[in-house]
């Protein structure tokens, strides 16, 4: 599992600087991945979240199976259509008592059944990405990677709006928002190794502290213990791959994210994720393209000449002009996803490409933003899961099929021996 040097012939920089952005990244990522030099690479899972749902009438494809027509919003997927699966009629059960948007984002990947409520009232338990990471992350330097392209600095909403990945209820897997930080985390090997002796001390200290605490606090402290252990393992595994990583000769992103356009920001984050997946530094990743609701206006460069409030627009879609603007925003998000999918498909791996070994899911926890409903959630899965996924189709499930069925199928495709997740009623037939 080596990212071979010759693929990166000259010193490459993830610039994040307008037109020059894509080129050096493609160079790094083009060519042959050495995730596994001869055999097919491992199957990897990634999730791309879009908040506030999508305009329904422009989302749904008109037929099922292989001969379906991509809907207007899904049009950007045309170039990768053969490696993409569109899924409809997948639902989540909405639980009363907590905010519709908060629950939509925080519980999208949750493995909790609707009657398993956290003390805060959310059906929120370990999310599917973390369930998979707990197993497949045993073999990689980083157990999982959580990224967010949340551009807001006004801290308007609570953690439930800003996170899709959770270790358990009340225990969020915090995401990184700054591409530079992501870069440093993945590639600054020396910084990691220097901390080994310090970690030993604090781990001891934490263990001794356990005896002084009651049960509830011990549970809370276990988050700390678990984190220290994970970082320790990370250090060992990163150290083993030190030479390889040094050999990558890539420089951190230059442009601050605050100065990036929306698409630059999302693409740079996506590039970093792809790089990590390609080099097999991790096999599970989540990216939030934007946090849920957050009714603050946002500039979407090149799309609107004024900042727009995505959430506010979903409530104005009765108006034809607002609806068509919202459709273009939906399409923008699909484009961002499609661009990342296309990049994955350019990276050779085994007999195919990285994409062939991916399960890369695009989705939202709400279907219709104006109604706050969780039925028929917009869902697209890119990749072939190493052959386990028969792509190029529109799969329409029976009405009322829990989306947990999809998560269960994924877990199985990732090699986990599970037969049930939350309210799942069985796995989807995707092979």
């Amino acid at each position: 599992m080596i990212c071979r040097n010759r693929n990166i012939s000259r010193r490459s920089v993830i610039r994040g600087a307008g037109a020059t952005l894509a080129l050096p990244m493609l160079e790094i990522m083009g060519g042959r991945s050495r995730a596994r030099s001869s055999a097919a690479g491992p199957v990897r899972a990634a999730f791309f979240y879009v908040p506030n749902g999508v305009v329904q009438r422009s989302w749904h494809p008109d037929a099922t199976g292989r001969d379906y027509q991509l809907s207007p919003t899904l049009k950007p997927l045309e170039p990768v259509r053969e490696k993409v699966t569109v899924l409809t009629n997948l639902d989540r059960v909405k639980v009363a008592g907590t905010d519709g948007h908060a629950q939509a984002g925080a519980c999208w990947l949750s493995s909790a059944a609707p009657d398993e409520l956290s003390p805060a009232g959310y059906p929120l338990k370990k999310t599917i990405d973390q369930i998979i990471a707990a197993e497949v992350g045993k073999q990689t330097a980083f157990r999982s990677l959580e990224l967010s392209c949340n551009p807001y600095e006004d801290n308007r909403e609570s953690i439930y709006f800003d996170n899709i990945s959770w270790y358990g209820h009340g225990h969020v897997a915090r995401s990184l928002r700054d591409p530079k930080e992501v870069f440093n985390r993945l590639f600054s090997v020396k910084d990691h190794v220097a901390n080994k002796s310090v970690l030993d001390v604090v781990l001891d200290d934490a263990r001794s502290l356990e005896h002084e605490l009651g049960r509830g606090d011990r549970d809370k402290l276990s988050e700390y213990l678990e984190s220290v252990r994970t970082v320790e393992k990370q250090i060992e595994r990163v150290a083993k791959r030190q030479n390889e990583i040094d050999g990558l000769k890539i420089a951190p992103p230059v442009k601050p994210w605050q100065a990036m356009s929306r698409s630059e920001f999302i693409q740079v984050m996506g590039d970093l994720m792809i790089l990590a997946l390609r080099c097999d530094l991790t096999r599970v990743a989540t990216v939030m393209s934007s946090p849920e609701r957050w009714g603050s206006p946002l500039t979407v460069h090149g799309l609107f000449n004024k900042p727009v409030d995505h959430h506010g627009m979903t409530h104005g879609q009765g108006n034809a002009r607002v609806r068509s603007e919202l459709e273009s925003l939906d399409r923008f998000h699909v484009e961002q996803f499609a661009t990342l999918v296309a990049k994955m498909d350019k990276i050779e791996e085994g007999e195919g490409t990285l994409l062939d070994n991916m399960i890369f899911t695009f989705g939202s926890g709400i279907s219709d933003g104006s109604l706050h409903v969780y039925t028929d959630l917009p869902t697209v899965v890119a990749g072939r899961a190493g052959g386990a996924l028969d792509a190029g189709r529109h799969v329409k499930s029976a009405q009322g099929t829990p989306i947990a069925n999809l998560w269960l199928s994924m877990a199985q495709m990732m090699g986990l021996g599970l037969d049930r997740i939350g309210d799942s009623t069985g796995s989807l037939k995707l092979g």
Partner: protein
Amino acid sequence: MKSLTWVLLLAGVLCVPDESQSKPFDYHSVRGREVISGSAGLYEGESLVMKGTSRIQGMRHFGNQWSGDSHLLWLGVIGDAMETEFPIPAKGNYRLVLQMTTAPDYGFFSVVLNNSEIREKVDLYSAQVALSAEVDLGEFHMNEGMQKLAFVLKGANAKAHAKGGKQYLLGLDFVRVTALDTDKKPKTGPLPARPGMSKPLPADFQQVRAVLSENCFECHGEGGTVKADVNLLALSSLAEYAQHPQLAKKLLDVLEMREMPPDEDDELDDADHRLLLNFTNAVITEHLGRDNRLPKVALRRMNRYEYNNAVRDLLQLKGDIYPLPEKVIRSFGKYYDPASGQLPHSVRVGNRALGKNQIEQHLLTGVSPFAIDLQSEHGFNNRGEELGFSPIMMESFLGIARSLLGSPEFNGYTAIDSSFFSAPGGVPRGVWKRIAKDRLTAFLEKAFRAPVKADSLARYLRLFNGMIDAGADFKQAMKEVVCAVLASPRFLYLIERKRDNAVPLDNYELATRLSFFLWSSIPDDELLSLARAGRLSDPDVYGKQVERLLLDPRSKALSENFARQWLRLDRLIAAVPDFDRFEIYYSRIGCEQWKLGLQTMIEPLLLFESIMVEDRSVMLLIDSNYSYRTGDMVTWYKPGVPFKGKANRNRFGTNGLVYTRQPVNNRREGGVITSTATLAMNASPLRTSPITRGAWVADVIFNRPPKPPPDVVPEIEADDAKIEAEGQTLRQRLVEHQVNKSCVSCHKRIDPLGFALENFDAVGRWRDEYRSGLKIDAKGKLFGKARFDDVVGLKDAIINNPEWFFRGFCEHMLSYALGRALEISDKPAVDKILSDALATRGRFSAIIHSVASSYPFLHKAPEKEKE
């Protein structure tokens, strides 16, 4: 059911103000803390009114002897004068002392006070840049108000060299005014008598049931109709109510807010309302009396702001460890000095919302903060349940500690470099380990806020010894240990040791809760030594410590951490009023980047700080006759088109603005509800958003947040021009959209609070009518009880029913202090704090003392085994 009578006797918890008062109470008369002479009149040069060429100059690179690390710098030719002003709070005799800067290109000056020369010559020449000796100008009689002070450039020392051939400079570090005998004491409001408590009405359960039957059963029980899961009919005896405290709490909430019955025509009359309220209170009290469960405060990690303060205080750093956007106000001078009893008349501050360079300067290369901890849905960002830990957090803490201790500036940034980090001079390497042991014993106690256990000490010592054995020098090894300390769970978490039953916190735990409440930081040496001696829990000692912490400049954390979050001020940063319609909100024509409106973000915070420092009534947050504003903001608040005729508004400063205390004569201004910042942040780009504003008032001011909105929210046009074009006001359109009873009951509560503010447009400026000429209807009823016609009427309604706002404020403060959400069992504590607030007319320090001495603050809950 006769036993109910005694229950009702317990129910005197809802304080109703004495309505026989003929004149409303003037909350401005509440002035707890007296102006302390001496430090009261310390006016930093950099905070003085600046005219002509005067500007601020940072002085740090010349040394750290300048107060506030900066001074006022002026430049002119002979004959010119540097002019400024400072305020005097009351007529009387004062001593005037100057602290000047001297330098090779400074001139000599005469000093003029209120147009008469009081000193012939002050020579500011010196071969090197330095502080002068203090210049004692003598004693002067001054009247209340602004005093003019001028320095006339008369010439220069023969050795001085002029700038540009003929100009000389002046540097003023501060002016100190000491009151000798003032003709009148500063205004201290006489403490009003405690308002009368309402006597519980004699009632029995049958009476209560009759009222319920008449007004509530139809929807909540009869014929199987059970709306909102509330079946009151099924509760056929008092005992059954007592067994359903949650239901009783629901009943209490809707009664307090007059939310039910939902229809205007069916409202309860006052006697019935009070009967039900007392009954419900009694049920809750009865329940809590039998089953007093103190909720557990979850083990919580420091948040980003607290971590900064804790590291700063532990390592005695000169400033912050990383740039903190949480600090909205960047202070140039040390204007915040609660011991002075007076917030300065004018303050020069930076506003971080106006640019990244306005974040408190960071002096350490390479140290960057972790991501901010987000606030709870209706609370603060200090709750253990939400302050999680993850591998990324661990990496962040390690990274911060390493970059901090390793930064090139660190050794000069900490005051304990020689006493702690450096090896003592002339001591052989062989005794380093023993010295380290002594030093670490004291250091770990402070870092962990607990007695140091032998095994814990040994652990950190082993790390030190291992480093030394491997050839490291003393400082390297010490830094490695500190790196581990700063990432240790004993440092990062606020730890309260397990108990089987509810007991008072131990002394160390109490010190920690208190310092995190008032300073957002670890206890200092004095608190720790009291804790060590077991004396902090002595009520007298404790009370004095609460006061001491409040008078310490570190109490600014209450503004930076509590007030900012309480008001949700961050929202303003993202407000984007439509550029074409509200161009005045922006600084520069044709430029959407610079928002003049962001200057207003500081206004509510400075009001809050003045209330803290001057120990005034928190009611001024509703209605104040003064406010801190920049010159631009004074213009902004004036009616009519502001900044008229100025083709280019490029001139708006962003680099440190002077906020001056302005009298507010129009009661539609003043306080936080009607400040531009909160009004503008709760609007949408093209129009006001009365529901958002109303929900904000309900949540922030009264701590009664509305329930989450229903799934299907009717669409309202984003632009009010379109609504008005159809001859409708926004209010009419919204009312039209309330389709069913469940909408109505909630909106009845929120809407009036938002519509009362309709006279303020989407950027918070006053308007008499809508743009289309349609009339604005701001009428409403507060909690179904107090009618008002406009926003001034709303303020009167709040002032005349002080328990509503005081309760909200006290609940927010207690929740912040505890780091958890409040529960029913906190009700007796809240009632006690509320009654203290009412008795002192909302005096800030009284509320803080009461919160800090409340039962839930002083005690910890038993550890429940898993149920």
